[in-house]
């Protein structure tokens, strides 16, 4: 018995040593946020952990004390009351303590749920930059409608400027996650979801697809780089000067299942993102979660309903409508 306990505690301390040595590097992405959204989510994690520990720690101590004190042994002096089965006072205590903790936690959670709703714009003097994200099999396409460029498996944006990510998918659903900037949101075909994030300092951040989407899901990693505004502008103009343009045919090639290197494009087809979103919709049944101005454009979105059939050129004028709203 005692030997077992010793063995267990040795094992647990081994784990902690391993955790500690691993902790010497700055790999705890979620605990090391570089943006206000991630920071608030971390605050919330810490608050909720502390609230939980208020009840968990006494329970663990109590468990140990009770098991130790009331174990059967020859020279035992502790009380034995085999008939004792009810105490209104005690039961009231342990119904009410968890209720109080949960009520406090619930109040905090609700407040943060509204404050951190991912479709809610971040309050900031700078105007947000829009980046349209499409998850493909098995790569990420990033389009910059304002700059007119696109990238694959790499995303760059200025620091200290809110980023409005518009997310969709042209493949099984995935989830877009940059842990150091904030939590993830799913990318789903037929709808454009919105995720607002901001980077408070320059840096290169780890990004990944978080929801399983088939064979090479594990390769769906990307780099998210935050730079100064000047560097960002220079990066954009470099791409404009040197990279090829993304054409509709190029997109169809890119969308085929397979892996991709980091690629940059100096131009994007007009309305490609809306076209991807609308591709899977019947007329008028659009799901625009949290994004603005969904009304007008969608009546026109009568995309062909066969799977995988790409938009014909005839749809081009509808796409123009979508871009205008």
């Amino acid at each position, binding site marked *: 018995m005692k030997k077992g306990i010793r063995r267990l505690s040795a094992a647990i301390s081994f784990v902690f040593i391993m955790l500690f040595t691993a902790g010497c590097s700055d*790999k705890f992405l979620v605990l090391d946020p570089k943006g206000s959204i991630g920071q608030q989510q971390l605050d919330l*994690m810490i608050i909720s952990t502390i609230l939980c520990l208020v009840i968990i720690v006494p329970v663990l101590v109590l*468990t140990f004390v009770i098991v130790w004190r*009331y174990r059967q042994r020859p020279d035992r002096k502790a009380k034995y009351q085999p008939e004792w089965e009810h105490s209104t006072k005690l039961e009231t205590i342990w119904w009410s303590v968890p209720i109080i903790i949960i009520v406090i936690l619930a109040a905090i959670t609700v407040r943060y749920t509204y404050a951190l709703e991912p479709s809610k714009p971040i309050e900031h003097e700078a105007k947000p930059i829009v980046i349209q994200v499409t998850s493909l099999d098995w790569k990420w396409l990033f389009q910059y409608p304002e700059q007119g460029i696109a990238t694959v498996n790499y995303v760059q944006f200025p620091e200290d400027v809110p980023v409005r990510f518009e997310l969709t998918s042209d493949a099984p659903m995935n989830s877009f996650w940059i842990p150091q900037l904030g939590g993830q949101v799913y990318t789903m075909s037929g709808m454009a979801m919105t995720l607002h994030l901001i980077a408070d300092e320059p840096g290169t951040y780890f990004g990944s697809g978080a929801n399983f989407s088939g064979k090479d899901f594990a390769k769906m990693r990307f780099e998210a780089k935050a730079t100064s505004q000047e560097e960002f502008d220079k990066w954009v103009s470099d791409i404009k000067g040197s990279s090829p343009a993304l054409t509709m045919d190029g997109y169809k090639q890119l969308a085929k299942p397979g892996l991709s290197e980091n690629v940059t494009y100096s131009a994007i087809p007009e309305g490609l993102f809306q076209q991807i979103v609308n591709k899977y919709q019947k007329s008028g049944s659009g799901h625009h979660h949290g994004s603005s101005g969904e009304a007008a454009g969608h009546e026109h979105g009568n995309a062909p309903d066969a799977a995988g059939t790409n938009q014909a050129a005839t749809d081009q004028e509808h796409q123009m409508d979508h871009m205008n709203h």
Partner: protein
Amino acid sequence: MWDSIKKFASEFFVTGDPLIYGADVSIGLTMIAVVAALTYFKKWNWLWTEWLTTVDHKKIGIMYIIASILMLFRGGVDALLMRTQLAVPNMDFLSPEHYNAIFTTHGVIMILFMAMPFMFGLFNLVVPLQIGARDVAFPFLNSLSFWLFFMGAMLFNISFVIGGSPDAGWLSYPPLSEKMFSSGVGQDFYIWGIQISGIGSLMTGINFIVTILKMRAPGMKLMKMPMFSWSVLSSCITIILAFPILTITLALLFIDRYLGAHFFTLDGGGNPMMYINLIWMWGHPEVYIIVLPAFGVFSEIVATFSRKRLFGYKSMVFALMSISAFSFFTWAHHFFTMGSGADVNAFFALTTMAIAIPTGVKVFNWLFTMFRGKISFETPMLWAIAFIPCFVVGGMTGVLLSVAPADFQFHNSYFLIAHFHQVIIGGVVFGFFAGLYYWWPKVFGFTLNEKIGKWAFWFWNAGFYICFMPQYVLGLMGMTRRVNTYGWDTGWWELNFVSTIGAFLMGIGFLFQIWQILHSIKFMQKAPADPWNGRTLEWSIPSPAPMYNFATIPHVEERDAWWEEKQRRAQGEAPKPLPPLEPIHMPKNSGIPIIKSAFWFAAGFGLVFNWLWLAIPGFIGIALSMLAHSFNYDTDYYIPVDEIERTEAAAKGDAR
């Protein structure tokens, strides 16, 4: 001709992986060995009459447990393969497709084909004995439930050597699971394996609700019923409300795949999110379905080994029932990050937190059952005590996950993986092990070796923490679930390596358990009727329980009826005179459940491969079996008094 056979075989059988060829060979050899042994020892008749056609709840329970231990082995091997692949970066042990198939089958098997039958096994072994009944309410249906589960599980399992395993995750979210992205038969095996066994689960739920409500011994009011039976009742109510949702959801997915409908497809107005809502409306109650009976097991064990009444009985009942009701209102917390908006997220965050309250109260009640008790540490109690801290910590990380905005960072990461393994292993698996150890002597009539059992216990526990504590940290380091490999640059490898060690320690724990059983069979120690100084009715009858359970149906006046009876006898009160024996009315064995389930297997297999020449006869066979049973009036018989007397005398003689 030869070429077309070769072509068919290369598509029909899974080819190309040495691991699977190895499995083919070992499956083949095992089957030959089993058939040869049965033939050589002339045991076919015995197998058919004693086991395959039995309607005895105890034997059905044993078959459930054996099946679930086999499935635990298969699911465990899947887990070890995964952990091996993840032990170091850039590992080439499993291809991505193979890895995806393995995590899918691991999840499905562990929940639906390990935890569920283990639980049904315990229901069958214990409930009738505990409430003073001679069998379940519908013994024929009970046998049918088992065989449907068994055929469904087999249909699912053969997919790894025939046709190909499903590989879209254990809940197989569309659009990935639709024909467009998963065109192989694996997904159809998934649908039909679960559908067929799901019918069995639903019928078991109905069966035990009726058994508990209608067949309790005289005097056993609901509020005098043992806590395990209460937990079975709450779990079964949840089953009958939740499983129809699963059946419908998978039926719709099947219609999409088979007939080209558009319920959940990307195109044609389909909505994959509808599937995700529906599947979790079943999936979340499902985890409570399996954990509630584990709570019941702990309640029995903690009271027995503290030699004290269960503290706060009414609170416990109320907590069980409120958990089972609340479990239907939390499903959307599995996808806070799908853009439902703040209103929806806030609602489901609150309901999820609320469910922590009754769960927490139960923990306090167990602790105060031990308080002022006399605690001894036999293996069932060890598992129960290990459960408390494990489940409390797992419950805490569950509350952290329920905080919706924080969940945006936890979701789909290894933090989540660590959480649900902690509550499912720490709660469900520890609970079912505890229950199996506790009731083993009653079921089999011999005791298990305590020393080997303790080794198994410590390996499982150390292995558990070493495996899953690092995974919480990996989640915070950004590692997402279901990745089949990772690079050196991520910094994840040390913790993954530790985690893999832990997984193998649990594997060793499992081997100790098997050794414990084999060792105890070899050095058979007869179990007394009441080995643990028990409190409830099952301990008042011989071990193993005779076929008819109770020679005379007991009268119950209080909770812990057997304990109180023993107290009275210790004070010198003479036991009440037993009424004279009467012939006992028993159900007759029937071959229809296994035959009908085999037809279901054929129908399912035919639909998987789109072979209507097999599916249609399968369905006709099902209909004919039902018809045959409807016209069978020879379903029961009486055990004569002198046979009861002989059995009882023999059991008494053994016990001395």
